[in-house]
């Protein structure tokens, strides 16, 4: 009898364990890995909680790997150990294509087609689609889109009696203003630069926009040939380099990332990213604003290099359907509003949310007043940065800084750079066409 009780008790306990186990299996735990600042991370937690409130069976764990380069080292290591999180952040121009090539991300074509109305691809910025796809197949949905603009210190412009930059400025206008705003001491030492950043700042990505505007090219349209040493590119690069070498309105090489004399009022203008608006708001103790990047003085054309953030789903996730539900929400209008439009940081990747974002800006009266310049650039003049199937960034980031050194022979330097990129194309087994 006693034995019987013991047996039935243990059976009951087993049943309880099984029941709990089953109910635990009903809840799906997903991990989202992001690569953002400490201020940004709580916004993602809010989004994750909102999603769980609507889908109580899906719990999201947000992991923030803050540091830029190390994020990709981590991703690479996770790829080896097969521990890539269910959803993860990706950034165009950081070798995303290279990771897609290794099969890190789950193809999304079928689900995008199935849920077309919800995903609403026409709401994306056309030029960004290139970096969300790998060989024509979808790998990620967009989060934000980034371009650079011309920031300016209103106080220094007023003091020099120079008119503020407009969205219609050409590079010649920029040069003339920068000359008036460059100040030297009696011994000839520059005490204030017209332009804090060289035209080749952000060499690996965004400087290409300046070269494109001036009629130069780095790669052929299909990224299989190199045009850096073509006469058109040499002409464009020489024109831009002369801002430093001939006119001395911008500092030469030696200023490293994050050193910005603009913040200390020692430069009247600088190029910087749409992602940096919050940083400018907190660092500038003077009135400032932003304008669109200058146009080509002859053709009146403007091309702005653009690349952005996106989110992808691991190819090895055990819960693709749940991850997809969350991905749709994470990159959808509501989350975009919470993450970007309300705090006014960066630029939303959805045209519809760019409108909400712009309305918030005009309501809030926050500087920079003309921050919509970034959205206009993206819709009117953006061109996606070339993907990194092969490593063109090493040679560009090594050689571009030397272009503003007056001792550099520009055609020769560009030829060296072009040949190194040709080698890189060849090294991954592609055919070099030019």
């Amino acid at each position, binding site marked *: 009898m006693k034995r019987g009780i013991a047996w039935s008790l243990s059976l009951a306990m087993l049943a309880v364990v099984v029941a709990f186990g089953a109910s635990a299996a009903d809840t799906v735990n997903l991990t989202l890995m992001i690569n953002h600042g400490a201020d940004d991370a709580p916004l993602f937690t809010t989004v994750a909680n909102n999603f769980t409130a609507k889908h109580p069976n899906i719990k999201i764990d947000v992991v923030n790997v803050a540091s830029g380069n190390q994020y990709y080292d981590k991703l*690479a290591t996770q790829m*080896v150990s097969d521990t890539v999180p269910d959803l993860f952040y990706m950034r165009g121009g950081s070798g995303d294509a290279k990771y897609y090539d290794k099969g890190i991300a789950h193809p999304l074509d079928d689900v995008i087609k199935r849920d077309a109305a919800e995903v609403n691809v026409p709401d994306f910025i056309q030029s960004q689609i290139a970096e969300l796809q790998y060989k024509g197949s979808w790998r990620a949905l967009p989060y934000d889109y980034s371009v650079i603009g011309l920031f300016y210190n209103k106080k220094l412009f007023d003091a020099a009696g120079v008119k503020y930059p407009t969205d219609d400025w050409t590079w010649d206008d920029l040069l003339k203003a920068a000359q008036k705003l460059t100040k030297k001491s009696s011994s000839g*030492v520059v005490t204030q630069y017209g332009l804090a950043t060289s035209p080749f700042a952000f060499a690996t990505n965004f400087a290409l926009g300046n070269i494109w505007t001036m009629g130069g090219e780095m790669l052929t349209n299909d990224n299989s040939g190199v045009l850096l040493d073509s006469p058109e590119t040499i002409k464009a690069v020489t024109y831009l380099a002369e801002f430093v070498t001939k006119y001395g309105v911008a500092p030469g090489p030696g200023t490293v990332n*994050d*050193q910005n004399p603009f913040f200390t009022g020692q430069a009247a203008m600088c190029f910087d990213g749409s992602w940096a608006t919050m940083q400018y708001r907190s660092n500038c103790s003077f009135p400032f604003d932003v304008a669109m990047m200058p146009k080509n003085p002859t053709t009146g054309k403007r091309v702005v290099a653009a690349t952005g953030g996106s989110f992808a789903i691991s190819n090895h996730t055990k819960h693709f359907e749940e991850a997809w539900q969350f991905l749709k929400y994470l990159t959808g209008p509501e989350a975009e509003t919470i993450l970007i439009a309300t705090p006014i940081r960066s630029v939303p990747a959805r045209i519809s949310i760019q409108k909400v974002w712009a309305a918030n800006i005009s309501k809030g009266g926050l500087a920079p007043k003309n921050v919509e310049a970034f959205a206009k650039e993206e819709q009117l003049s953006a061109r996606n940065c070339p993907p990194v199937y092969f490593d063109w960034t090493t040679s560009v980031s*090594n*050689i571009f800084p030397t272009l503003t*050194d007056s001792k550099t022979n520009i055609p020769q330097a560009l030829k060296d750079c072009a040949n190194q990129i040709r080698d890189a194309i060849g090294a991954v087994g592609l055919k070099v066409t030019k």
Partner: protein
Amino acid sequence: MRGQFGSRERTKEAIAGYLFLSPWIIGFIFITGGPILVTLILSFTQYDLVSAPRFVGLRNYVTMFTHDQLFWQSLKVTALYTVGLLPALLVISLLFAILLNRKLPGMSTMRTIYYLPSILPSVATTFVWAWVLNPDFGVFNSFIRGLLGVAGPRWLGSAQWVIPSFLMMSIWGSIGPTMVIFLAGMQGIPEQLYEAARVDGASNVRQFFSITLPMLSPVILFNLIMSLIGSFQVFTGTYLLTQGGPNYASYFYVFYLYKNAFTQFKMGYASALAWVMFLIILACTMVVLRSSSIWVYYQSDKSDKK
């Protein structure tokens, strides 16, 4: 002396020794040793992190020596840096150690101050140095302008000055540990030697060259080898500030290794690079050790061998 101990005693002593070493040995075998062995195997393969490693024999090593300009460039840059760093670091640390070996009030505070750079996170000090070296608004060039009336070099932006810039940063950051080891060595030199020398009328300079330097030579050897190994591994500054530039002038070996492994996913090639670096360091260390019989003075030598 040794004959007095029985073999039992010796075994006991050996066991105690190994026990004291065991935390390190266990850690080495299970945490470091395994991966080291794996890199040796991987260095004979082509491995992109995702597909299985494919055996390619000696191809990585052959490519490195015959087709890879960046390998030679990174080797050249690293060698240049090492040759610049070692003598300067040793001489400067020794000078500081001599100064801080005086028995003066407040000396321990001074020692702490000179050691301070070594306990700061190198990432933070690297960024501070970037500001010091900023060509337009940095402290260094302001001094040069004020004193000499000419514009200073563009430091990190100049192919000629980028290595000297890194040398300054490294020496400033590594003086601490090197100096402390010198100091400890100096304090181990018996005072009687100096007393005897003073009685014989030897000057301070003579005392330094005839007593301090020979008695310190084993410590110099130790510091030389440690700095040699450290200088081959230089990475932080170029990773944070120059990305190897301008024009590959600061493309250090370990940075190149890192680029191969983590931005180009050439793990097999990166492993081969690591092993070549290991062999180079090993060879340099052997040369230094072999040469040490000429210039290193061990007190025990005479009593043991004669």
